[in-house]
């Protein structure tokens, strides 16, 4: 069997190494090389996706298992089900767009080369994480990913970027290290041996109740920091405000999904009893995230912070969908993970384009842009509407699936959360109003319409949102079986008990 997944990890990693080792004469071509590498990655992924057996989307396909460090029972084990496939799709689609978005950001060739290499390196980690079938491997990549991200945040962006990078690192590291204790403990409670960390070998093991709950909490804490949940979200707005738009787009659109992805693939699968035990509290926290994030978003004057807070709100919806343990809500949450990546990614990039023109993300500094930049305004509006879940755009489908699915078991939570849709209309439309409508601000200077490059960055995302908005089945076919399996893992045992 062709080792698709290993190659998908290797290609961007080698690309990054190549960029760093580039001879001085070729350094000016770093952007083109990075784009070519992600193009190759996308093509390889497409070939793989075509061979994915959709009728068996719940099973892990393209499996590869090689012994890695037998002494501690870890393997280089990769494999994807429909959910993993979709998350990798999101990664390989967004990365070239982030590279395009950063095309003109750096004047300095050496800085540009570093940034491109860091993006490629984080792509390698993203693919690896979404494909990892070994808890130790997952953990290693999960932590190692912090390094490129740290440098992307701390090295490229606004004045506060170093503060933001350190805050990001400390939050993530603290979560990760607590997870490490549980990872080590897994070795001792699991079957042991040379494949002690394969998730397949770890599911369904019997654990003492307290042990299982503590371990679940350790994992969940790490993931809740990553998928910024109130009250562990405070690093995100700071990062969003300070980092470069492309970095934040990748971070929020893809990397933060590792949090929700980990909840589904590790927390639920390994600790079903503890997941059920914790679900009520988690749902309450999720609802708080939904409302609190939305309310704070309304109050933000900085557009990056605003989008960051909307994400806190949307991640709350995903977590609600996951911990309601209903097939439909789980499907919705998984689908939302993909759609939120499209819409928030596009939103961050658009704000970034605006900032690259006028140098500020402050809402109050703008006014009336729709008269001078109609295409820009139109694109922003469509993307913004997707963030407030307008029917016809894909986030709507996923959000409604979460709400419908979760209603029978958590009616109150759904009713309260649904208020966020109204709040979303407020923060998106108010922002649109003050930035794009009204009289054109004279002090803004000459307007530049969305350039070809910028259209190439944002319109594919809009296209995908429309496509999946009208034909959600394309994606949901991949998600139904994994979602059903995830729910079954948690609930079957309950029926038996």
């Amino acid at each position, binding site marked *: 069997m062709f080792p698709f997944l290993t190659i998908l990890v290797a290609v961007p990693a080698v690309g990054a190494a190549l960029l760093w080792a580039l001879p001085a004469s070729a350094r000016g071509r770093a952007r083109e090389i990075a784009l070519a590498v992600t193009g190759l990655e996308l093509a390889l992924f497409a070939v793989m996706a075509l061979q994915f057996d959709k009728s068996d989307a719940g099973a892990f396909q393209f499996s590869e298992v090689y012994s890695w460090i037998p002494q501690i029972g870890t393997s280089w084990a990769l494999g994807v089900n429909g959910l993993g496939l979709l998350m990798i799709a999101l990664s390989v689609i967004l990365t070239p767009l982030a590279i395009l978005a950063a095309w003109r950001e750096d004047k300095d060739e050496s800085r540009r080369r570093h940034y491109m290499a860091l993006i490629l390196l984080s792509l390698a980690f993203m693919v690896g994480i979404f494909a990892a079938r070994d808890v130790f491997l997952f953990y*290693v990549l999960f932590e190692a990913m912090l390094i490129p991200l740290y440098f992307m945040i701390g090295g490229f962006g606004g004045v506060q970027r170093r503060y933001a990078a350190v805050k990001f690192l400390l939050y993530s590291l603290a979560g990760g290290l607590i997870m490490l*204790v549980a990872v*080590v403990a897994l070795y001792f409670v699991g079957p042991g041996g040379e494949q002690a960390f394969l998730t397949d070998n770890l599911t369904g093991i019997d654990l003492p109740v307290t042990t299982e709950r503590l371990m679940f909490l350790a994992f969940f804490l790490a993931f809740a920091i990553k998928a910024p949940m109130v009250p562990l979200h405070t690093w995100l707005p700071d990062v969003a405000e300070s980092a470069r738009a492309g970095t934040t787009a990748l971070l929020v659109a893809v990397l933060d999904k590792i949090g929700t992805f980990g909840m589904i693939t590790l927390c639920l699968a390994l600790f079903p009893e503890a997941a059920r035990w914790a679900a009520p509290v988690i749902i309450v926290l999720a609802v708080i995230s939904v409302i609190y994030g939305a309310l704070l978003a309304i109050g933000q004057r900085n557009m990056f912070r605003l989008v960051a807070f909307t994400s806190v709100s949307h991640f709350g919806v995903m977590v609600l969908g996951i911990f309601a343990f209903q097939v439909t809500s789980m499907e919705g949450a998984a689908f939302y993970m993909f759609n939120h990546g499209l819409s928030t990614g596009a939103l961050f990039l658009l704000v970034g384009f605006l900032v690259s023109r006028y140098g500020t993300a402050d809402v109050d500094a703008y006014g009336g842009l729709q008269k001078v930049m109609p295409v820009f305004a139109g694109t922003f509006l469509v993307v913004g509407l997707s963030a407030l879940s307008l029917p016809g755009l894909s986030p709507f489908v996923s959000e409604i699936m979460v709400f419908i699915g979760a209603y029978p078991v958590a009616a109150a939570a759904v009713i309260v959360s649904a208020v966020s849709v109204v709040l979303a209309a407020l923060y998106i439309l108010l922002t649109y109003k003050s930035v794009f409508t009204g009289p054109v601000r004279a002090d803004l200077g000459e307007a530049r319409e969305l350039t070809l490059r910028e259209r190439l960055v944002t319109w594919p995302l809009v296209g995908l949102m429309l496509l999946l908005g009208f034909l959600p089945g394309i994606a949901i076919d991949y998600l139904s079986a994994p979602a059903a399996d995830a729910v079954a893992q948690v609930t079957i045992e309950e029926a038996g008990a």
Partner: protein
Amino acid sequence: MTFVTPEIAWAPLAPILIVLVAASAAILIEAFIRTPATRRIVQLAVALIALVGALGTAAVQWALLEGAGTVVMDGMITVDRQALAWQSMILVFGVLGMILFAARTRAGEEAFTPLGSTAPGSIEETLARRKGLQLTEVFPLGLFAVGGMMLFTSVTDYIFLFVALEVFSLPLYILVALSRRRRLLSQEGALKYFLLGAFSSAIFLFGAALVYGATAHTSYSAVAYAMELGGANDALLVTGAVLIVAGLLFKIGAVPFHSWTPDAYQGAPTPVTAFMAAATKAAATAALLRIMYTSLHPLEWELSWLFWAAAIASMALGTVLALVQTDVKRMLAYSSVAHAGFILVAFAGLEGEALSALPFYLLAYGLASIGAFAVVTQVRERTEDGSVGAEAVRLGQWAGLGKRSPLLAGAMSLFLLSFAGIPLTAGFVGKFEAFSAAIAGGGWPLVLIAVIASAVAAFFYVRLVVLMFLTDVPDGAEDDIAVEDSPLARLVIWVTAVATVLLGILPAGVLGLFEDAAVLLVSLGA
């Protein structure tokens, strides 16, 4: 009175003997070769040949070893795989250390003072410098230290352990005092190291005497046997055991016996700091492991509070004090105190896992330490007349190093990430192994504290990375720093960097070796 000629199995001792004989020969070389330049090259060659030869011999011993090992000299020394593994590690550190000893700056300046007996700033010192004198005694001294440490890892008798302790400590006391620059600081560090070291030796010896008083034995296994038989004076025994462990905790650099570390690390010539940081900790850990597993294990319950307390205190104090340091060498010294805490975490419960986990941990830590201090030797201040001066050890001086010398700063970051235990570096695998051993022994609360300490510790490691890569060179300070490119130091840096990555990504082979080595000839319950 008749003497019985002891039967000595010489072959298993060969690695140690090679090093000690070479050290003695090196002293003769010192006397007979008059030209400093030739002498230096010969000394370096002898040292490296001896160390590599000993390494080869140790490998042969390993292959030839039948069963668990060999008892030599009536139980004074035991050569088993565990001992050979530690000896090989110390030899590797020795090779890297010696290369660093020999490294010189572009201007031909070495790390050691030309004449140790001169007073700092005196006319004699200037004269010695002008005459081109060189202190080549450092090579035999280093060899004696390596030989003593090797002995330290395989001794199985309390009195003989004391001898080995002094064999490797005395050369180190001298080496610490020989820095070429900042000589007062160096001598102060050495004095402090010597006084506290002598103090700890006395404590250790007192402990050994008490244990002898309680059991009438000095051999590890005999002491354990006597304890298991019962009837020994418990108060005497426990007091003795505590004092013995305290003596070794001093060498590991654990709180509250750590106070020499920052001064000795800061004052010593940086190549010596590199060697000392890596090898002393390894040797002391090896001895502590052997003592705990073969001799004092019946007292596990009575001693566990000591390990827990020392581990927690070391992690907490080392981390917190490292946070406030403004000197790179002092920061690394306090970080080594925190690492002493992590090492002690693995002792929770005395599980078999620790026997394979700790060698890997010390190997990872030692490689990163040698690498990091080697980097320190390369970053220099520029004096007013434009020549290259002392090492730039103030943290602020490292700002923007990533721009001046990206590869050097990259290597340093790698070592720091390894210290912090970030995945894909050797330090992570080491930490994972040590924590596993602790959890296996029921020490998960300790692991939890260790994890919190790691998270805090990451802050000061990362702070240096930030300084190097994300901070610009301060305006007007562009010419204050000169980056050396001594080939020998670079060699050490690249070797340790590659090893740190390799052991982080593909540790299976080395882990396997250490797992094979996790056999003590006389072990728990034997």
